[in-house]
C-alpha cells in the first residue's frame, strides 16, 4: 500500500483486512478502511497537505488532533476539511489544497 515515497510505513502485526479506494490528486489508491485522511495521505507519499494562507509555504500536519489547521484538504469538492478528523470512505476524492488564493479572490469579488 505504501508507495515507497512515504517516510511512514504500516507497522507489522497490523492486520488490515478491509481497504477502500480513494484518489489523491486524481491518483487512485487503496488504503486501510477506517483510518483518517491524514494517515492515508502520510502513508501514501512524502508530500505536503496544503500551502499556508499568507506565504504559500508547503505545510503538513503538525498536531493531528484538530488544533493546528495545517492539514486542510479538499474532500469531494468541499474545501478546508481537516484531514486529521475525516475518516476515509470508498470513492473519496482528496485534493491537496493549493488554492487559498482562489478563495481569497472569490471573497474579494
Amino acid at each position, binding site marked *: 500500500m505504501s508507495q515507497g515515497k512515504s517516510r511512514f510505513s504500516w*507497522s507489522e502485526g497490523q492486520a488490515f483486512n478491509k481497504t477502500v479506494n480513494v484518489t489523491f490528486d486524481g491518483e487512485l489508491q487503496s488504503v486501510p478502511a477506517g483510518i483518517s485522511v491524514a494517515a492515508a495521505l502520510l502513508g501514501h507519499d512524502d508530500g505536503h497537505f496544503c500551502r499556508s494562507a499568507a506565504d504559500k509555504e508547503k505545510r503538513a500536519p503538525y498536531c493531528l488532533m484538530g488544533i493546528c489547521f495545517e492539514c486542510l484538504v479538499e474532500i469531494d469538492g468541499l474545501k478546508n476539511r481537516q484531514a486529521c478528523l475525516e475518516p476515509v470512505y470508498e470513492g473519496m476524492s482528496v485534493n491537496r489544497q493549493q488554492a487559498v488564493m482562489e478563495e481569497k479572490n472569490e471573497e474579494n469579488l
Partner: protein
Amino acid sequence: MKKTYDAIVIGAGPSGIACATELAGKGLDVAVVDEQAGPGGQIYRNITGSSAAQQKILGTDYTDGLELVNAFSSSAVDYFPQSRVWQAAENGAVYFSRNGVSQQLRAPNLVLCTGAMERPVPFPGWTLPGVMTCGGMSNLYKDSGLVPSQSLVIAGSGPFVWLVSEHLLALDVPIAAILDTAPLKQVFPALKQVSGAVKRLDFMMKGVRLIGEVYLAARKKRVPIYRNVTELQAQGAEKLERVSARAGKKQLVFDVDTLLVSEGIIPNTALFRQVGCSHRWDPVQRYWHPEVRGEGQTSLSSVYIAGDGGFVHGAKSAEYKGRITALHIAKEMRRLSTVEYDEQLTPVRKQLDRELFPRPFIDALYAPRRDLFALDDETVVCRCEGVSAGRVRELVRQGLTDHNEIKAIIRCGMGPCQGRMCSAAVLELISEVSGMNPANTRQHRLRPPIKPVSLQELANAQLGEEDES
C-alpha cells in the same frame, strides 16, 4: 429530530463519556457532540478498533479506557460523532457542523469537555513538513498503525517525550537521538511540592520506571539521549532535512526527515473563550484555564467543565471529574436526593484526590523553562499568517499589550487556527517586552464560527424554528 436535551456534553474523551454515561444512568436526556469518528478522545483514540499489537505497545494506560468506552457505547446517550462545534452560548444553544450541514441543539446544562492540547512552542523551522508533535505521532499510531520508517529525532520535555520514545523504541523505529530539553536544575524548586508526591509513590515510581526503561532500551539500540538540550532548530527547503541543537558545548546535527516535539500539555480553551467563561492564569504551568469550582461549575451558571479543559490532571482525573459534574447536575435536576448525592460523590471524590496528590510536583518539575519563549525575532509565531516574533515585539514596544489589538493590525491569530497555535507565544512576548504580568493582560478571544464553516453551509443551516435572532 430531537433538538432539546437536559444536558449537552461537548467532547467524547474520558471526562465527556464518563459524564454522559453517568447522566444517562440517572435518567437524564443527554447528547454528546464530538469531532472524532469514535469515542475515547486523544488518550483512548480508536480503542475499540485497535489491533492486539497496538494495544500491546500502548499498554494499560490505553486499554484501561476500554471499559469506559464500552459503558458509554451501551448507554442511552444521543451521540453525534464527526461534529465540529462552531459556537456555544450561555443560553444553552450549541451549533455544530456535521457532514457539511449545520444544526443546533439546546439544553439548560452544557458540559464542555474539550480536553488538552500540546503547548505550541515556536522554534526556527517549526512550520516545515516533517515537524510534528509527539501527541500527533501517538494519534497517528493509534489511528492507523502508521510508524516512521526512516530515522527521526524526538525533542522536548515532559512525560510525553518518554512515553512516545518508549513506544517507538518498542516498535523498532530508527531513532537518531532523543533530546531532553528539561533543565536539570528544575528538580530543586519542584522538591517543595514533594510532600504530595510521596503519598503516591506508586505513581512516581511508574514515571521513574518509564524513563529508566527508555534509557535502557535506547542504550541497547545505541540511540543517544542528550540532556539539557537548547537551541533546537529544524532546517530544510520546503520540508525537514536536518535538525540541529546544542547540548552543553556540543553542537548536534542530525540528517532526518521527521522531528517529534513536545513541551507539555495545556488546556484546550478555545470554546471556553468563545462562550465567555472567566479564566485564570496559572503562574507555574504558565497557561490560562477556565475558572472552575469543585463540581465543574464555571463563571456561567449553565456551563460546566470536566476534564483537562479546566486544568491538566490526566485521563484518570478527567474521568472522575466527569462523574462528579454529572452527579452535581443530576442533583440540581432533582434526580438525586442530597443524601444519595453525598453517598455517590464521596468515593469518586476520594479517587480524584488520590490522582491529584502528585500533580503539584509534576507541574513544577515540568514547568515551562524560563527561556522557552525566548524567541529570535525571525522565528515565525503565527503559522497561518506567517507573523514573526520580531513583528509582535515591535507592536508591543509601541504600547500594544492586547493580543486582540495586535491581531487586528498584523493578522497574528487571524488565520484558520484562530490563534490556537500562537496565543501562548504572543502572550509571552507581550509579557517579555512590556514587563506585564500575563495575569493582567487581556486574553485572546475567539469569535464564532470557531471552526471553518462555509457561507453556503451557514445559509443552509438547520438551526431550528425557536432560534432567536
